[in-house]
């Protein structure tokens, strides 16, 4: 009994520790400017206001950054999912020399710190005339999301019985037909996990965005918000918090939708053999 209570207290302690910054972010974003630095600080705002949000949307390029981030993350996710699904299929189903070593080589690239790759990638993108575009970031994020995505989907793919595909082939489907009709629906939970991973990664990425993109029209949220609100002399805390809230919202929405799908998907896979 005591152990259970202790365990519960411990668990709630962790939850609070994790949730408090989020709570503070939310609270700060709706406090009026004069209340922000009052001592002692108010826990809940005395006056609620949405002025920071309105300022953010009307007076700053926040929406441009937001749009860039959406385009960037969605494009990266689509590219990564498309390539890694087909790649995982090839790694699992086709037999060719060096298949295993290829898979490990791919994983190896994931182990390199991304800082090491940034200069060569930058030079490459410049010589391709892609620097300072959203597309350059799509390429950069794809390079480091892909290895992990490939491995994730590879294990999902390996869990799909080969008989299913054989059955579809015998039933008259082409290889591509069997892939679309039978493999893809089975792979859906894996595809969702991969998409989630890739989307979050490209949504939150900072370093590459900082180095590869310098024009305001192509900046994503991460660097855009920092650039606009954090200067050497001043940090616009209230705006920063409002921006942070709005940055988190899409992720929370995506997660909330897909999470139920994820858990449902995991159970749906197998027919016992």
């Amino acid at each position, binding site marked *: 009994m005591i152990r259970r209570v202790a365990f519960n207290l411990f668990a709630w302690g962790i939850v609070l520790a994790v949730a408090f910054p989020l709570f503070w972010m939310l609270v700060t974003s709706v406090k009026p400017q004069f209340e922000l630095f009052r001592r002692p600080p108010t826990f809940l705002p005395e006056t609620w206001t949405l002025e920071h949000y309105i300022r953010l949307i009307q007076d700053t390029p926040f929406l441009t950054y937001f749009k860039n981030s959406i385009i960037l993350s969605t494009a990266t996710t689509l590219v990564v999912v498309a390539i890694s699904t087909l790649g995982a299929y090839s790694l699992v189903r086709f037999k060719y020399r060096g298949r295993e070593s290829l898979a490990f080589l791919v994983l190896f690239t994931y182990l390199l710190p991304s800082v090491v790759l940034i200069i060569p990638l930058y030079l490459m993108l410049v010589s391709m005339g892609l620097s300072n575009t959203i597309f350059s970031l799509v390429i950069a994020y794809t390079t480091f999301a892909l290895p992990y995505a490939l491995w994730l989907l590879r294990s999902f793919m390996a869990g799909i*019985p080969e*008989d*299913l595909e*054989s*059955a*579809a*082939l*015998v*039933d*008259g*489907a*082409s290889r591509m*037909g069997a892939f679309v*009709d*039978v493999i893809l*629906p*089975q792979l859906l939970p894996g595809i969702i996990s991969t998409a989630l991973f890739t989307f979050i990664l490209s949504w939150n990425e900072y370093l590459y965005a900082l180095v590869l993109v310098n024009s305001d029209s192509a900046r994503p949220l991460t660097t855009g918000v920092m650039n606009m609100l954090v200067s050497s002399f001043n940090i616009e805390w209230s705006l920063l918090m409002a921006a942070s809230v709005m940055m988190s919202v899409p992720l929370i929405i995506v997660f909330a939708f897909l999470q139920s799908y994820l858990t449902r998907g995991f159970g*749906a*896979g*197998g*027919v*016992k*053999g």
Partner: protein
Amino acid sequence: MAAVNFDKVVKSFGAFTAVHGLDLAIDEGEFVSLLGPSGCGKTTTLRMLAGLEFPTSGEISIGDRVVNDLAPGERDIAMVFQSYALYPHMTVAQNIAYPLKKRGVPKSERGAMVQKTAELLQLTELLSRKPRQLSGGQQQRVALGRALVRDPKVFLLDEPLSNLDAKLRGYMRVELVELHRRLGRTMVYVTHDQLEAMTMSDRIAVMEGGRLQQFAPPTEVYRAPANRFVAGFIGTPAMNLIDGEIRQSGGTWQFHAPGLTLDCPPLLDSARPGPACLGIRPEGVVFGSGPIEGVVQVVEQTGHENIVVARIGADMRLTGRVGAERVWQAGETVRCGIDIDRAHIFAAGAAGERLNRPGLRPVEAPAVIKAAR
């Protein structure tokens, strides 16, 4: 014409050869079992016929058509998998309709065809369910339905009953035979269960080590096994195999083993004196009288008969099938004999071929073979 023909078919995976030069001619409408232990190449053979594996060399034909280079979907076959391989995200009706859909049968006709198949297999109530909501036997019937819905030339069945419980398996065996009789289609059935092969097939192809050992009707495989492997593999309890040698003195052949000398059954002209193996089925062993003395070691009572294992000499064992009226006790001394007219002589070695002439004496129908499990 939908005969199936394998002509010198070889299948290698890298350095490993799974099937060695298989020649097999299956007649139209025949029910043929590919029988053998795990890894004998039977499933590879079936998958080559399905087009899921491609032969390294040799030719496979279905009817008049060489199918080596045809995709599975172009071969006009249907296959039932051991795992059933039902599409988990589709309903039973969608599963059954899938082969029709892939072959461009108009949607309006599909419904009626699915309905007809479902009625045949008593699946009508289950059409809107997903595979995971079905029992093993129901899943099996859906898999069968998916194969039946489109009247293919050849049915391929890869151990379709092995995931069912014993009672259902017995029921489905009868159903399948009935189905075969009604459809009159060629069926190729892979199994490691000799009971299934013996009870269902027109002919059995016994395979081992990627080679065809014997291709004959069940009774012939049982009564006149082509070699020592088939002799030992078919039949439960297994045939007694006694290593010794054959000698010729005057015009008669004798079999010698430690503590045992017997006149041989009539041998082929090709027989030569030397190491050999005597095979005798448990029903050919006589307990209670005879020239051999042994000690009863194990008695298995099955109700209608007893299986008695006796130790002869130092390291020889003899299994006999005897009536249930006399109860033998372990440790009891027993005299036993071998009905030489039912004995087989095989050349030495694991796959030594038969040296005695087959079928010289009509043998009564083989006793009921007990289920392997």
